[in-house]
């Protein structure tokens, strides 16, 4: 708080012209007391209200507080150095990463730039309390990356993350429901070269299922993006969190991974995924989700489309089969009749 030891100097214009509006407030009061209490979207709205408020609301310090309180993993030095290269610092980072990504249309004229690496900043929350944060860097230049299926793993094979969540062993379904309602994830992919970021997670999980073999609960968060067309018309970018039970009833996170799948269920290679991701980052609309289930709605739409596509394909194949059989029979019959009745 700004402590004024002597009575403040006279404010010449503000008190006489617009009495009692927010402009009579000393800018220090506004900044230190009021703007620090606002959350991200409200602060963005305040910045659009008038030029005075714009100047006050675009302080990087305010936005940095908001970002670090939303995503604790931002505090990592790699990430903070990249964010400082963004056009308006934390403010543009927040506007890129906070809303949900909507990317429906693919334009063929998109030019990809080669980035050396991609940074993933991941936070998992349970009941809005962060339980796990990690920053991972993936290089994207080597051939191995380009040809192999795109996959980002956060935990080592035997590395587990202990949490304080209690595993309810009573009914098997109650734990699944508990996770579905309370667990949220934020996976922010940052492209340092293009200086953009995007949030790949759907906020709330799109599906929570128990794995048939291991008995672990797999929580899936997915975003749908537009791809090239054909079987890559829509691409699903899914984050899988596998949680298992520990002795003693606690829950531990065993695997956190991200992968890209097309409509056939095939994993995209590194090169293809990079194209899709970069386009989504540049051209994707960021829309504020009205309720938490928008991401799930879109995922279900995607699943529905996949199913329809599969059915259509099967139908076509059947038709094709019939046509081939008929053609074959016709040729057979005609050739025999030709031979017999010559």
């Amino acid at each position, binding site marked *: *708080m700004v*402590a*004024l030891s002597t*009575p*403040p100097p*006279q*404010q010449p214009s503000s*008190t006489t012209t*617009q*009495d*009692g*509006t*927010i*402009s*009579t*407030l*000393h800018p220090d*009061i506004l900044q230190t*007391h*009021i703007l620090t*209490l*606002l*959350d991200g979207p*409200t602060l*963005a*709205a*305040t*910045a*659009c*209200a*008038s*030029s*005075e*408020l*714009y100047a006050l609301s675009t302080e990087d310090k305010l936005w940095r507080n908001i970002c670090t309180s939303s995503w604790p993993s931002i505090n990592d030095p790699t990430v903070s150095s990249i964010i400082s290269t963004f*056009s*308006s610092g934390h*403010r*543009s980072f927040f*506007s*890129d990463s906070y809303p949900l990504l909507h990317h429906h249309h693919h*334009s*063929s*004229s998109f*030019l990809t730039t080669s980035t050396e690496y991609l940074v993933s900043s991941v936070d998992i929350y349970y009941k809005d309390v962060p339980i796990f944060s990690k920053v991972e860097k993936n290089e994207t230049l080597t051939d191995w990356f380009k040809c192999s299926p795109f996959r980002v793993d956060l935990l080592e094979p035997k590395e587990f993350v202990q949490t304080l969540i209690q595993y309810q062993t009573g009914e098997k379904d109650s734990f699944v429901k508990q996770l579905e309602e309370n667990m949220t994830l934020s996976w922010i992919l940052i492209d340092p070269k293009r200086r*953009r970021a995007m949030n790949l997670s759907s906020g709330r999980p799109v599906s929570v299922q128990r794995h048939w073999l291991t008995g672990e609960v797999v929580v899936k968060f997915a975003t749908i993006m537009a791809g090239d067309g054909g079987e890559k018309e829509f691409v699903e970018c899914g984050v899988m969190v596998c949680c298992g039970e520990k002795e003693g009833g606690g829950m531990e996170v065993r695997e956190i991974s991200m992968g890209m799948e097309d409509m056939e269920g095939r994993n995209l290679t590194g090169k293809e995924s990079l194209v899709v991701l970069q386009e989504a980052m*540049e*051209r994707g609309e*960021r829309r504020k989700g009205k309720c938490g289930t928008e991401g799930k709605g879109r995922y279900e739409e995607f699943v529905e489309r996949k199913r329809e596509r599969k059915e259509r394909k099967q*139908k076509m194949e*059947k*038709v094709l089969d*019939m046509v081939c059989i008929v053609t074959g029979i016709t040729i057979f019959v005609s050739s025999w009749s030709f031979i017999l009745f010559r």
Partner: protein
Amino acid sequence: MARNTVRKEASDVKLRKREEILVFEGGQLRSEVPKAKGNLVVGTQQSVLLGSFGAEFIFYHMPEAGLAVVKPEKIYNWVELELLELEILDIQCLHQAPMHTFFLSYYLFIFSLKLPSFFDFVVVFCMKMKSYIWLQTADGSVQQVEEEVAMFCPMICREIIQAGMGSSKNHAISLPQRVNPAILGLILDYCRFHHVPGHSNKERKTFDEKFIRMDTKRLCELTSAADSLQLKPLVDLTSHALARIIEGKTPEEIRETFHLPDDLTEEEKLEPLGNITDDPRIRLLNRLYARKRRELREREKLKNVDVEDERGDNRSVEDLLSFINGEDGDVLPFADSKGGRNSKNKKKNRRRKEQAKDDSSNNPNENQKKESDTLPSVSPNDEVNDILAASPSKTSYFQDCSAVTFSPKLDFDDADIDDDDLDPAMKEELDRLIAMLDCLHSLNEFNLYLVLSSISCGILTLLKQQLCSIANAIFYMDNRFGPEIM
């Protein structure tokens, strides 16, 4: 009575009172500045009998001078003055008369006199209780406020203690400029409630919530005033209330609530959406805004439009229809900024012409000549009526139509927008969209209906053919292979 070290405040106060003499005469105590030593001074002052302490002293309360303790005998002059300090925590046991508005949690300062034995002595208590502080607001009005209420504000407290102000009307404490009398009243209400230690937290919270209920203008004034007086709890309370008001509002609502001017450019407003230089949709939006601004400016300049613009409009309709039907994909002259204007005068002229019926008959004839294959020969009015209902959807189709193949030559003269980093295909697409939107803007109602009606007819016939073929194919396939597939 014990002698203790002198407190700083006491000495300050004492200094003020040093010159005064209390005289007890005829049941009344008087306070007066002595003219000369040895004289008897006369004056009158009201005093209230409070009670007695032991058998020796009688307490009197005087409004200006404080508490006085006297022996009921006359005195003639001072010999010596000594300061004593006596803490009376509970004066209830000391007095018998009712106390009116007393808060005796302060220290009593006792001046004792060492008088020669043949003089009686007067003991004066100078007590800081229920004394008033004078406050002066920026507009000159002076108010009297109970001291303990005013002491809740650190600034006033400091002024009293360090500068010794506020004890009388002439030495009133001048408050900062942002504090006007109405707001001062509110602040004092707040202080009056909160400085009493007896209220529970719940009571304080309820009081605060009720206190905050005022319009935003008052709330802002209150925040400024509280901040200038450094009253931190009130500043926190009002800031939280303002933050709660701002939360969840759109920029327009915020502007409305606080009466702010809308003085940001569109680009600045759109900035949070991302990099505006890269996102083509944002650039399109900016272009349209810039164009609209330009149009408005030009409309202002040229208020009266001539009939010669009608020709430009006619041509635009024909060309428009021609490009829709794919006949000649050539230059559209309408893209010039002057021709693209959509002023009311043009519409009026157009309507007059409609009534005259000379040009109106021309237009449909010309149109029908061009679209002989698609347009049924119905009078334009009927078409308009039929298609009127469907026009909104058709408009949207029109806007999204990127399948139309033509390359207009656009006359863009907003040089401020940098097109360099847009790749050509994207630019073409954008240009197409802009041209179409431009068309809509430049057409007046009549032309619009014509265009839309003709488009819709064309579309319907095309679709019909295709739908028929598809339906046939499906039907055929179903018939042949239906049972086998299922």
